[in-house]
């Protein structure tokens, strides 16, 4: 039985992860970016996970001669308040939507570097993980990063990873073991769902997700206080009318809006101040949460109660067209003739196009947003 771990290069993860399993683990390089030639060598089961975002570790196993994913692991050593925690949520969405269970390891509380503030983990990330698990019927858990009495992280010696002898990592160890057992079964996810640790962690997740008041559109971070994050549920027809009024060009583009978007009577709107600049942070991380927590009822982006709308009213569409023009003229392998050095990506693009290799913010908005409104244009999901 061969276990494979894809990692980003920090050798200390090898000792850390190998301590969690009894099997031998082969460590392989995770491509730094989807447009690098290493990406073309990945098994499709693994590369599909990287379509939307990149978890820190992807664990897979050779089963019946094929390499199939077991689970992905994301480490978040940041302070765990709302936006920081949700920045990592898209990595869980990436993994779960590719059928791979996912865990996010993040402290329950952490002292900020100003040494005065102590932040508590947002209910939102736990609510999002529960919703993600319910929609995709795939295990998805938030685990605790070990902390000391002063709310500093406690790491395993000489590694940047949490203490192995801690509750969160003991849970991870049990989960990995169950994943390996369940992978022997034809139906991996159904078999995994029957395991004791999955039931235990599901109970813990549900308790945490609903502990302080369920997040909702008015209060996306949960609790009973007004949230700083602004979300609006608006009438779709009125919204399309408002967009059309911005310019003749907007109006012409709105006439081409796909029927499935017009047919949803309501739309959930959030207000990013950038789309691709500065890697689209923090909105690129948040859109997955807004989608899963408040619009989605099924695995496909067609399965939505509401349209998901990014209203970037002060942003130029050049943020998107500029990035895509650069991709088309510099990164796209078809710019050059077939050569030895570009043959891998040439062959990859002949088969799959640039769906998974263009820049991350573009991939995420193209996949998840139904409408992206700019000051000088509007984009609609191709469905």
């Amino acid at each position: 039985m061969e276990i494979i771990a894809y990692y980003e290069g920090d050798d200390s993860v090898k000792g850390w992860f190998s301590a969690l399993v009894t099997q031998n683990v082969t460590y392989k390089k995770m491509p730094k970016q989807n447009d690098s030639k290493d990406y073309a060598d990945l098994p499709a089961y693994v590369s599909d996970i990287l379509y939307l975002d990149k978890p820190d570790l992807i664990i897979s196993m050779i089963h019946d001669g094929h390499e199939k994913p077991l689970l992905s692991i994301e480490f978040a050593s940041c302070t765990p308040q709302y936006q920081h925690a949700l920045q990592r949520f898209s990595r869980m969405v990436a993994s779960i939507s590719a059928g791979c269970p996912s865990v996010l390891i993040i402290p329950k509380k952490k002292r900020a570097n100003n040494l005065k503030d102590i932040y508590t983990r947002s209910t939102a990330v736990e609510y999002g993980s529960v919703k993600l698990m319910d929609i995709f019927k795939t295990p998805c858990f938030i685990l605790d990063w070990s902390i000391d009495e002063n709310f500093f992280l406690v790491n395993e010696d000489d590694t940047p990873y949490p203490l192995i002898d801690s509750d969160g990592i003991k849970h991870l160890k049990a989960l990995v073991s169950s994943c390996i057992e369940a992978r022997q079964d034809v139906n991996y996810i159904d078999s995994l769902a029957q395991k004791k640790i999955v039931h235990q962690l599901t109970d813990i997740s549900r308790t945490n997700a609903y502990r302080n008041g369920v997040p909702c559109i008015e209060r996306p971070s949960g609790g009973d206080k007004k949230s700083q994050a602004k979300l609006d549920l608006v009438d779709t027809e009125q919204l399309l009318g408002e967009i059309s009024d911005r310019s003749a060009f907007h109006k012409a583009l709105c006439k081409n809006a796909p029927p499935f978007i017009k047919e949803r009577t309501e739309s959930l709107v959030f207000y990013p101040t950038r789309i691709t600049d500065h890697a689209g942070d923090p909105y690129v991380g948040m859109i997955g949460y807004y989608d899963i927590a408040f619009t989605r009822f099924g695995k496909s982006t067609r399965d939505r109660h509401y349209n998901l709308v990014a209203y970037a009213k002060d942003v130029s569409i050049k943020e998107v067209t500029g990035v895509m023009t650069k991709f088309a003229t510099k990164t796209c392998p078809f710019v050059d003739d077939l050569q030895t050095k570009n043959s891998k990506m040439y062959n990859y693009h002949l088969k799959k196009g640039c769906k998974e290799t263009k820049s991350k913010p573009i991939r995420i908005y193209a996949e998840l947003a139904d409408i992206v409104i700019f000051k000088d244009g509007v984009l609609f999901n191709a469905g």
Partner: protein
Amino acid sequence: MQVDFSPEIQLVNKLRVELKERNWSIIQLVCSGGQTHFSVTYKCQGKNKTVFPDLVAFKEKQIIIGEIKELFDQKDHDKLIELYDSELAYKIITKNISLRTKTEQDYFSIHYVLINQDLNSIVSSQLAQLVLSEETFELKHGKDDSALNW
């Protein structure tokens, strides 16, 4: 499909091994742009600035704050000099480490260090450098910094 990682990742891996061999306790060691949990916010020309050091480690009374690049990097040099000159940064860093180690704040001295594998790197006046030569890191003292006991 195994391909070498970037020179900076290899530097980080080798540095982690050597820090361990030399009994340094590591609080943060990442490549540029890696995920960090330790940052320092200080004032520079009236503005708040936050830096995320690639290396934060301590041994006995010494703290290393380091920046890692394959070659000598002037921007990293200037960034560390700004930190070096900031009393607030000194207080924040020493307070943070003293809280973690349950020691007095004035127990520590801080050394700002550039880490690279540039054998021809420029000698800095205030900063020490750890330069990877073969398989070990050699300490190049700054002109005015000879106190780091590596």
